[in-house]
């Protein structure tokens, strides 16, 4: 194959890569620096609200994997009392269908993402472990009330509300990497 002027294409490509040598990095030093995740993040593990749950097992029927196990008995006020609420998060695919199905907002997706365990038994969560705690915060997936209270997601394409709601700027986490791409 013959070219009229050999080397022009490579020179053009090199000019581009050379240009990129001078731009600020957009990567984040992960364990030290963390980005805010989406308000609707379907993060690891579920958050279960004991007071809201009526034991109707709609979530268990909605689960594609059949992961949620609920055992109830009839209580004094003719209501269901939940004896057992277990989720095998090792088989969970975080599709969020259980959360969407719940008619009483008793279930929410979690926001955490660093939930690796050393033993397989540890990923099966019972009803005490599933309740809200410091490490288990609910996300706004299919829960608009929770969504409105959560911090805004860090985007590489960012919308700045201060500048009239239209002006957009690049994500700047620290002063060093202001220019972005």
């Amino acid at each position: 194959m013959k070219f009229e002027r050999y080397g022009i294409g490579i020179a053009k490509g090199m000019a581009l890569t050379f240009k990129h040598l001078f731009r600020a990095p957009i990567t984040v030093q992960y364990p030290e620096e963390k980005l805010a995740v989406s308000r609707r993040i379907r993060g690891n593990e579920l958050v279960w609200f004991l007071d809201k749950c009526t034991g109707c097992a709609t979530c268990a029927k909605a689960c594609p994997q059949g992961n949620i196990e609920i055992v109830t008995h009839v209580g004094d006020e003719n209501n269901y009392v939940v004896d057992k609420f277990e989720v095998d998060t090792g088989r969970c695919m975080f599709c969020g269908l259980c959360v969407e199905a719940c008619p009483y907002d008793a279930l929410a997706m979690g926001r955490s993402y660093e939930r690796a365990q050393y033993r397989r038994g540890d990923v099966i969560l019972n009803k005490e472990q599933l309740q809200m705690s410091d490490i288990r915060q609910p996300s706004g997936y299919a829960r608009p009330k929770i969504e409105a209270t959560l911090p805004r997601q860090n985007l590489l394409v960012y919308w700045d509300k201060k500048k009239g709601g239209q002006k957009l700027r690049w994500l700047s986490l620290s002063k060093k990497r202001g220019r972005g791409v």
Partner: protein
Amino acid sequence: MAIRTEPFILNMGPQHPSTHGVFRMKVTLDGEVVVDLEPVIGYLHRGIEKLGETRTYTQIIPLTDRLDYVASMTNNFAYVLAVEKLAGIKIPERAEYIRIIMAETMRISSHLMAVGFFLNDLGAMMTPVLYMWREREKLLDLYEMVCGQRLTYNYMRIGGVSHDLPEEFLPAMKKWVAEMPRFIDEYDQLLSQNEILLARTKGVCILPRDTAVSIAASGPVLRASGVKWDLRKADPYSIYDRFDFEVPVGTVGDNYDRYWVRMQEARQSVRILEQAIAQLPEGEVCAKVPKLLRPPVGEAYGHIEAPKGELGFYLVSDNSIAPYRFHIRPPTLINLTALKDMVIGWKVADLIITFGSIDVCLGEIDR
């Protein structure tokens, strides 16, 4: 004196970095020239078709995410179209437009991945891929904002989509769409005139027009061979008849054409996106659909132009909550049958880049 040689059988894969997953090729070589090729698939088989028959229509949507995991949104799209055809559901206008925005951004992202890894196979180790990942990263952030996940979106629902767009989505998406042509120009500057790329791909491993049609290839592989066939134009599903765009067509069907068609399609997708965002109406995002859908007895085939070709879902209903038969027509399995015809007579290095130029996704082939 002629040297007596024997054909040599080389086993490539399944764990080979260039096979885009777990794909095995039994290649018979004469020196460095390929004389025969036998593809072996099935290493990623999960029985999704059979699993689908045990689940309700809504529960199948997360399974479709796991088919072509580079473009999950279009898998959702094709499946919900098939169910809506089966049950006769009409979906709101706003949901139609949101689906188009998602499908077209997914097409750009998938084509960027395809071109990036094609060049990776060519020997441009990771540099073009990282240029293209920069754009894909921004898009994944936007997907995360809308549906909460970055890879397995599970966003489309029967009768619409699961959530409305958040308020900060549209300005960010407009910015992404406005900048995309500049970035595609950047890739063009980096790649399209590069002498090494041209020498390695121009006229290499040609797929003739007749062969492409006879093996029922679709998508960029078919269009690179000069056949103007795009389901968005040929059988306008959803609301594609409202948009003004062109179907880029290659001339000879070599590896360069398959690269070129993808880059041009990304530009056309930007055009569709600009129109879709401008026309996006207000309103509901999901129609009223019963939680346990029982479609009437019958069958339906819903197909879309996925980034990799024609993706179809064939459903048979027996009026129960789960489909009686759930069949997937993956585009890349059918495009992959062209591989043997293309590579015989070429070198091993050309086999690798030709495999990359088909843009396969093993999740969808083995399913």
